[in-house]
Structures are given as structure tokens and as C-alpha cells.
């Protein structure tokens, strides 16, 4: 088999044992890699119904089909577990050198079972596995942990996926970090923390071979060349942060916990401003010829010197959404989140919930007592120092940080129960996952995509904001086409998340990002790597299968139609200002959208999956368990 070693490594942290599982080629043809394979491994290895922070929740990591080769942007891996935030599938992607090292070590995936009784890290040295004491790594931030491991091993080529202090403290939205990139969302870091797993280090010294290297190189070279052209310019020069002003203009920039859609200081926290004043260097992941990571530094003020990669989703959550119009503070917040290893989106949206709760009197100054401010403090929107202190308190689980570290859904539930309040109305989450940087009150196809998403409030899995914002669909209304649009959009995204290939390359195959433009090129790359005979329809299937295995996982964990919901604010409080003012998504609209979406997917009215559909997709065992 080319493109794969055929081997999955199982590691049992409880008993300190390892074993190898081999999978047949047919299995790889269905699940491929990335989020699909990781979710499938999770389906196979989890104890259904378990607590996500228990030993029964496995950590499942799946490599990429193109990892370790020159295929551009193919250096990514998928990771899945049951999410401590949502209780449903928590699938994430990360990239860069960890992926390529693990490919060269000869593994297609890892499944980590159980829990250790002491803090350890696992070192996979080609086909030899060691359980190593992590006591010298405890408390180190993400970058420092990786460097310490490399120092201990004496080898730069040892790469590691690690958790920082947030993961050690089981902050529910803690992430897993490697090489400056993150498997950011759904709380993987907390799961690793619950297993006392500080890091997973890999060294891989074998070569990677492919079925048809000459063809693969020719295809890759052309894509590398095209990736320097105008189709990737926005990523290379500005980065995704250009969306701050875009969203502000159309009136949908999340501001002050999604209370407004226009931020008066948007210019000061815009991508253009970042580019002009703060940019230090643009970096790339392994195998990436685009390079989109805009490393930026805070220049003056109390946070001068803070530096990290800034992206749109991190930026809105830590600036306009907090009423903060100072780029320095936004950079500082994102830097804290990156260093301690927590999801910058969930952190920002949780802090904004706390700020609104304070402004509405649900929380008071005294609730914010901490070592730095023994009398407490007043985290009104726009209070930079309060935001920074809250991020630190969450990381350390100090004072109210302990409650905030549970995420907005649980924090609001706890406070409301204790105090008889209604702060759940402004907990901006779907299924427990905090919302992304697009207010969907006037992006109605996207609202459907978010509500029905398997991961929760996730823009990446749905991607339906694209047709809404671009005007391909009328974002202010709903109609009978939206079910199909939402389905096609999420299955398109799922293809990239499964191979994986970074979506930023999608226009560099032929200049057209749609399926007709991208699928034939992707099929050629797959065939040159593996020797298979994939065609257009097979690529379509990759996306449908990926989405279906995740949906099946959720159904088995107790998902029902009611779980596909929208935040109260988006259903009851229209925006008052800006180009998108005056809209909500009504219950009627939402139920209608769900109906046509389930229909478009070929599911039942309850959103369950017919047996025949699962069998058609090659998932007979899944059909047995949850098919109807």
C-alpha cells in the first residue's frame, strides 16, 4: 500500500501497554485520513455514553494521505475524541512538522486509551514507544514544552503535540498545540489533561514513498507555482484578518458579546491596521507554499512585546467582541491563549459572557476577586486589563475563572441555578461550542449550518457563510434551496478536512474553487500517491462519508433534533444598527430549515440516518448500530 503504512498504534496509558492494529486497504479508501479517520477511530474505540474526561474517552489521531510528501498544504492531521464541551464528536485539525514526523515514523494513526496515574509524555521513536516522566515539563507553556522535549532528546527533528497549563488544569476549551499550530476547538486539551498526558512526541526517520512520484511531483510543482499567484494573495499578504472590516461593513462583526454588529473602533483592530503596524513575519506550516500565519507583535503600552500568529477568528473574539479597540490588548490576549494552550475563540466568547453578565448585574465586582485584585474588579466591555486578567484566571482556574473554564454553557447554567438569573440567554454557544466571528441573524443559510453542525457552533465545518456573504444565497431570507446548499457546503469542507488539505489551496488547482475546479486535481493527487483509481464521484463520497461518521457518532451519544438549536439572542434580539439590522431567525424558519436540510441529506424527519444510506456509504457496522 502506498500513502499509508497500514498500521494504527494503540497506547494504553493505564497499563502502559502498546499494540499495533492493521487495517485493510478498503478501510482507508472509505475513511482516508484527517477528521474522517480520526472520528471513525473514535467510533470504534470509545465506550459510548462515557464522560469525556474519563479514561474511556480515547484520543484518536489520524495522519494525512499527503503528509511527508511535497504535496502542497498536505502536512495536516486530524484528531478526535468525545468533546468535553459538547458531549458530541470533537474533531479538530492541526498541521505542520508533527504530522510529517509521525508519517515518517510509519504510523497512520494513534489511539490513546485510558489514563495515567502520573503526569507523563509518550515518545514514539519510529516503532519504539516510551512512557516518560513529565514532571520537568509541568507548568511549561506550549512552545516551551516542545522545546524542552527537543532539548531532552537532543534532536530538532523530534516534534511534539502538547498541552499547556490550560490543558493541565482541564480548562474545558483547552487545546492541543504543535509547532505553533493548534488543534484548537472542542477541548482536546482537557481530555489530555484528564489522562495526565502532557505531550505526544514523535521521531520518524524512514522515508515516505508514493506510487507515482514523478506525476506527484509534477502536479505538486504546478500547484506550488500557482500558490504564489493572486488566488492566495489575500492569505499571504493580509491573512484572514481582512474579515474584520468586511464583517463590520455588512453589520455582522460580533461586538460586545454579539449585542451589536458594528464596532466603532473596528479600524483599530482591523487586518489592515495589523498589517501596517504590527506584522513581524509570515510563517508557513510544513509543506505549505502559501504561508498565511501573520506573526504580529504588540508595540507599545503595558503589553508591548507580546507576539503570536493572528487570525480573524482569534481577533474578533478578543477585540470587538470584548468591546476592546486596542490591537495591543488583542495580541496580548491571543498570546496568553496560545501560550497556555486554550481555544482563543471559546476563551474570548466566554469572557464576553462574563462581561455582559457583569454589566447586567448578574455578576458583581466581588465575584471577580483574585490574587491580583483582592477586592475584585469590574469587567465592563472595553476594559483591557479585566480581559487580560480573566484570561489568566481561566488558565489558572482561579476564583471565577474556575467557573468560566467550564465554557459559557455550563458557566451560565451554574450561575443561573445559583442566582435565579437568565444569563443563558447571552451564552453565545451552540451545543456548548462558542460561536465564530459571523453573526448569523442575517446569514440564514449559515444559521442552519451552525445549528445542524456536528461539532457545534463551528464555521469551519459548515462553511455556509460563504454563499450567504457572497450573495449566492439571499442571507436575509430562507427558501427551499438552503438545505441542499448547507449540505453541499459542509461536505465540500469535509473533503479538505479529511485528506487533509488546507482549504486555502482550493483555488490554486485550476483557478476555480468549486468541485469541478478542484475535485479532478485532488483525484489525480490521491491516485499518484496511492495508486488508486479515484474519480470525481469518489471525492464527493469522501466528504459525505466524513460527515456521516461524525453524525453517526453523535446519534449514538444521544443526539436528537432538539440539539440542533440556535442561541436565544439570534432568535429574539434583532441587531439595532448597521446594514444587517432588524433580523432574527424565527423558530418557524429554523424548523423549516432543519426539515429541508435533513431531507437534503437523505435522513429521516427526526434527523436519523436510514440503514440503506449507511450501507451505501460502506458503513455496514454503523448501520447495524444506529441506522433506522
Amino acid at each position, binding site marked *: 500500500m502506498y500513502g499509508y503504512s497500514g498500521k494504527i498504534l494503540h497506547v494504553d496509558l493505564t497499563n502502559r501497554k502498546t499494540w499495533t492494529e492493521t487495517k485493510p486497504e478498503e478501510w482507508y479508501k472509505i475513511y482516508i485520513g484527517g477528521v474522517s479517520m480520526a472520528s471513525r477511530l473514535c467510533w470504534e474505540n470509545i465506550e459510548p455514553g462515557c464522560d469525556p474526561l474519563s479514561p474511556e474517552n480515547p484520543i484518536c489521531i489520524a495522519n494525512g494521505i499527503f503528509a511527508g510528501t511535497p504535496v502542497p498544504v498536505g502536512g495536516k492531521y486530524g484528531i478526535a475524541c468525545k468533546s468535553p464541551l459538547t458531549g458530541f464528536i470533537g474533531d479538530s485539525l492541526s498541521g505542520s512538522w508533527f504530522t510529517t514526523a509521525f508519517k*515518517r515514523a510509519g504510523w497512520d494513526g494513534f489511539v490513546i486509551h485510558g489514563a495515567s496515574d502520573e503526569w507523563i509524555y509518550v515518545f514514539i521513536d519510529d516503532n519504539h514507544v516510551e512512557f516518560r516522566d513529565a514532571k520537568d515539563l509541568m507548568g511549561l507553556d506550549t512552545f516551551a514544552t516542545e522545546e524542552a522535549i527537543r532539548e531532552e532528546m537532543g534532536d530538532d527533528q523530534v516534534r511534539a503535540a502538547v498541552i499547556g497549563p490550560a490543558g493541565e488544569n482541564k480548562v474545558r476549551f483547552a487545546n492541543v498545540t504543535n509547532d505553533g499550530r493548534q488543534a484548537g476547538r472542542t477541548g482536546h486539551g482537557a481530555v489530555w489533561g484528564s489522562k495526565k498526558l502532557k505531550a505526544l512526541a514523535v521521531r520518524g526517520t524512514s522515508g515516505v514513498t508514493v506510487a507515482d512520484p514523478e506525476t506527484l511531483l509534477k502536479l505538486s510543482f504546478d500547484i506550488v507555482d500557482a500558490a*504564489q499567484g493572486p488566488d492566495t494573495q489575500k492569505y499571504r499578504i493580509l491573512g484572514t484578518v481582512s474579515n474584520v472590516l468586511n464583517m463590520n461593513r455588512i453589520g455582522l462583526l460580533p461586538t460586545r458579546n454579539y449585542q451589536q454588529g458594528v464596532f466603532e473602533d473596528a479600524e483599530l483592530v482591523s487586518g489592515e491596521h495589523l498589517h501596517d503596524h504590527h506584522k513581524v513575519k509570515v510563517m*508557513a506550516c510544513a*509543506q505549505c507554499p502559501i504561508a498565511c500565519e501573520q506573526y504580529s507583535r504588540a508595540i507599545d503600552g503595558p503589553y508591548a512585546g507580546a507576539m503570536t500568529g493572528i487570525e480573524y477568528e482569534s481577533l474578533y473574539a478578543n477585540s470587538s467582541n470584548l468591546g476592546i479597540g486596542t490591537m495591543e490588548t488583542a495580541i496580548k490576549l491571543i498570546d496568553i491563549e496560545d501560550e497556555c494552550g486554550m481555544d482563543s475563540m471559546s476563551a474570548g466568547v466566554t469572557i464576553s459572557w462574563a462581561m455582559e453578565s457583569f454589566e447586567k448585574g448578574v455578576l458583581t465586582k466581588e465575584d471577580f476577586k483574585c490574587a491580583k485584585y483582592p477586592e475584585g474588579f469590574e469587567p465592563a466591555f472595553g476594559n483591557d486589563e479585566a480581559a487580560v486578567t480573566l484570561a489568566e484566571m481561566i488558565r489558572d482556574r482561579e476564583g471565577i475563572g474556575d467557573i468560566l473554564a467550564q465554557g459559557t454553557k455550563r458557566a451560565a447554567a451554574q450561575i443561573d441555578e445559583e442566582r435565579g438569573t437568565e444569563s443563558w440567554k447571552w451564552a453565545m454557544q451552540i451545543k456548548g461550542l462558542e460561536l465564530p466571528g459571523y453573526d448569523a441573524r442575517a446569514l440564514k443559510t449559515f444559521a442552519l449550518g451552525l445549528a445542524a453542525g456536528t461539532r457545534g457552533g463551528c464555521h469551519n465545518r459548515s462553511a455556509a457563510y460563504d454563499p450567504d456573504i457572497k450573495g449566492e444565497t439571499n442571507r436575509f431570507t430562507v427558501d427551499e434551496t438552503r438545505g441542499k446548499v448547507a449540505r453541499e457546503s459542509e461536505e465540500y469542507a469535509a473533503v479538505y478536512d479529511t485528506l487533509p488539505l488546507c482549504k486555502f489551496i482550493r483555488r490554486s488547482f485550476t483557478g476555480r474553487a468549486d468541485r469541478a475546479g478542484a475535485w479532478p486535481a485532488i483525484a489525480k493527487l490521491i491516485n499518484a500517491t496511492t495508486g488508486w483509481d479515484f474519480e470525481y464521484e469518489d471525492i464527493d463520497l469522501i466528504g459525505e462519508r466524513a460527515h456521516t461518521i461524525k453524525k453517526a457518532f453523535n446519534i449514538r451519544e444521544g443526539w436528537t433534533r432538539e440539539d440542533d438549536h440556535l442561541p436565544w439572542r439570534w432568535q429574539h434580539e434583532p441587531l439595532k444598527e448597521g446594514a444587517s439590522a432588524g433580523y432574527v431567525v424565527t423558530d418557524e424558519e429554523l424548523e423549516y430549515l432543519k426539515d429541508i436540510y435533513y431531507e437534503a441529506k437523505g435522513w429521516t424527519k427526526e434527523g436519523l440516518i436510514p440503514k440503506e444510506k449507511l450501507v451505501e456509504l460502506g458503513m455496514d457496522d454503523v448501520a447495524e448500530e444506529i441506522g433506522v
Partner: protein
Amino acid sequence: MPTSTSKYQYVTCDATKCVGCQLCEYICSYTKTGEFNTYRSRIRTVRAEEVLVTAVTCRTCEDAPCVIACPRDALTQDSLTGLIRIDAGRCDGCTWCIEACDFGAISINPESKLAEICDQCTDEEDGPQCVKWCPKEALELTTPDRRAQHQRRKLAVEEVLGHR
């Protein structure tokens, strides 16, 4: 510290342009071995800090110290091109050459335990493959003189004309 002469070419990396994609390492190892393996690459990236990354390969030093250090005379230097040639029959993997090289540009094949070094892809029609592939044009086959000229020109344009 010995330096390159003005007549020998070598592949150099501009750290301000390098983004750390490692494509050079994949293409070098493939060209030389048929496999994609950064351990077999004759050019190596190094990421020293979060935003400092660059690539290093043989600098074709004048009176190359690796040649002088080799106790078995397994290394010779071409007087016209400065390229280092390794006689696999004589090399025994003692790694004195690695000690001698100030740039870390010579490596040991982990399987054969013999020294390996950049040969600027003299048997490829389009020259060094890493230079051909680098997406950011950070790699260049150049001489010290040309590098210095380039830096002076860059300085003049930036400082005197104020362009970036």
C-alpha cells in the same frame, strides 16, 4: 573561521523570505534517494525562534575544513567549483568532517553511516532542485560577491529611496 571565496557558488537562504515550509528538504531527499525524508536531505531547515527560520547547506569553503579534517582522505574539493566530493569507499562515518564544519552543512546517512553533502544537483539539467522549488524564492545559487552586491543594492533602495 574559514569563509567562502569569491569564486565558488553555493546555495544560500534569505531568512527574511524563508517561511519554513521544508519543501526544499523533501525535494532534495527525493532527488538523491527516491524517498521523501528530511533526514536524507542535504539542505536542512532550522527554526531557531518562533519567527526565525532558514535553511543551510554546503558553503563551498575555500580550503574546506571538512576536507582537511578527514583522516582517511575520503573528501576532496573540486578546484573549479568548490564542490565537495565524498568517496564512499574510503568514508567510515567517523564524523570528523561534521565537527570541522562550522555550518552544520554535512550530514551522516543514518543507514549507511556515510557522510553526505550538497552537490548542487550537477546531474540535474535545471540545477539545484531546492532553488527551483522554493515557493518564496528564498534560496539562491550565488557567490559571496554577488550576495554582497545584492545587499548593497537592497540597502540603497530601502534607505535612500525609502522603499520596502
